[in-house]
């Protein structure tokens, strides 16, 4: 069984920026920001699926944050019950996938299975070539040094595979990348505050704009159509959308 992720823990702590969310009465001892996902990450994901002109109110952002934590608790509770019935002490990834299927999130199970499979491959590769990849990162990305070796290696691996992902997208006959949307200062304004000066403004603006372009490209080329099996409550449209997520998979290498 794998140990925790100390590097990720440090990153998670650094990402704390939430405030103002009400604290659950059931867990007064838990810090407020530990109860919710970081709002910057949530906003980034929301913006991927919204048109460029859409705006998101602060109360909607907070509500989505609450919903994500509730979702994790909901699925984990079901997985936990299964472990208790089978007298096991560890909640595994398979338990989580089983719980999702049982609770109606059938459409999620297949893309998550692919994701998990590639994550395991990634972990194996990362250990084998950590030193080399670390050096490569140093060569190509000045100004992004810092953190533990594992974190750097992971970052470099992601960078490497992201390049492969985009190369595969272009080489595979996918639609050409969409024209970059016109600058939306309001969007930048919303994206900037969560960083609080951790990155220079040009990087943030640049990343925000092209990040949207990259994701929109994936969205507008769903590929296969047709109807998928409908889970309770979700429509058939879920199937092509699921395909979109695979296109945006961070481990897009083959």
């Amino acid at each position, binding site marked *: 069984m794998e140990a925790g992720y100390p590097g990720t823990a440090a990153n998670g702590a650094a990402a704390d920026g939430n405030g103002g969310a009400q604290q659950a009465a059931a867990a007064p001892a838990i810090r407020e920001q530990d109860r919710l996902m970081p709002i910057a990450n949530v906003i980034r994901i929301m913006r991927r699926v919204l048109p460029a002109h859409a705006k998101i109110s602060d109360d909607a952002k907070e509500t989505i944050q609450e919903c994500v934590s509730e979702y994790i608790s909901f699925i984990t509770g079901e997985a936990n019950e299964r472990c208790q019935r089978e007298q096991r002490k560890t909640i595994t990834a398979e338990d989580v996938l089983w719980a999702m299927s049982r609770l109606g999130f059938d459409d999620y199970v297949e893309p998550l299975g692919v994701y998990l499979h590639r994550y395991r491959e990634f972990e194996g590769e990362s250990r084998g070539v950590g030193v080399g990849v670390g050096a490569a990162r140093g060569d190509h990305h000045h100004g992004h040094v810092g953190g533990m070796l594992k974190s750097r290696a992971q970052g470099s*691996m992601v960078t490497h595979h*992201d390049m492969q992902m985009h190369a595969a997208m272009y080489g595979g006959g996918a639609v050409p990348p969409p024209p970059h949307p016109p600058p939306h200062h309001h969007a930048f304004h919303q994206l900037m505050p969560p960083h609080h000066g951790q990155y220079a403004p040009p990087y943030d603006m640049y990343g925000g704009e092209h990040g949207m372009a990259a994701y929109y490209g994936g969205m507008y080329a769903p590929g296969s159509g047709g109807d998928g099996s409908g889970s309770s409550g979700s429509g058939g449209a879920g199937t092509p959308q699921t395909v979109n997520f695979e296109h945006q998979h961070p481990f897009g290498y083959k």
Partner: protein
Amino acid sequence: MRQARPYSAMFAGGVSARTGPHALPLARIKKIMKRSAGDSSVVDGGGGGGGGARMISGEAPVVFSKACELFIAELTRRAWAATLEGKRRTVHKEDVAAAVQNTDLFDFLVDVVTADLGDDHTDYK
């Protein structure tokens, strides 16, 4: 250079620098999971003292990291549909509540989204 821009965006956007390869921090997910599993005192991977201790595999938060992306995306799309019905371009809390009310899959969120809706005109029945 055509390839470099989206690639640079992935890195400059902070995803790799802040949360590694995952869009959401694994440590935060694990904390929420531990609270739901009913045990927040056991160190992951360490020896569990009591029989009732619940440990969480290192891969479970990884699966949740992606699952929450799918969940946020689906909930956001449905909320945006409600925003469009109102001829607006700003997603509000009420749009999220409408999305939850209209989707059986999200029944478990009803209490979350209606906790602070005191106005009568936002009562979706």
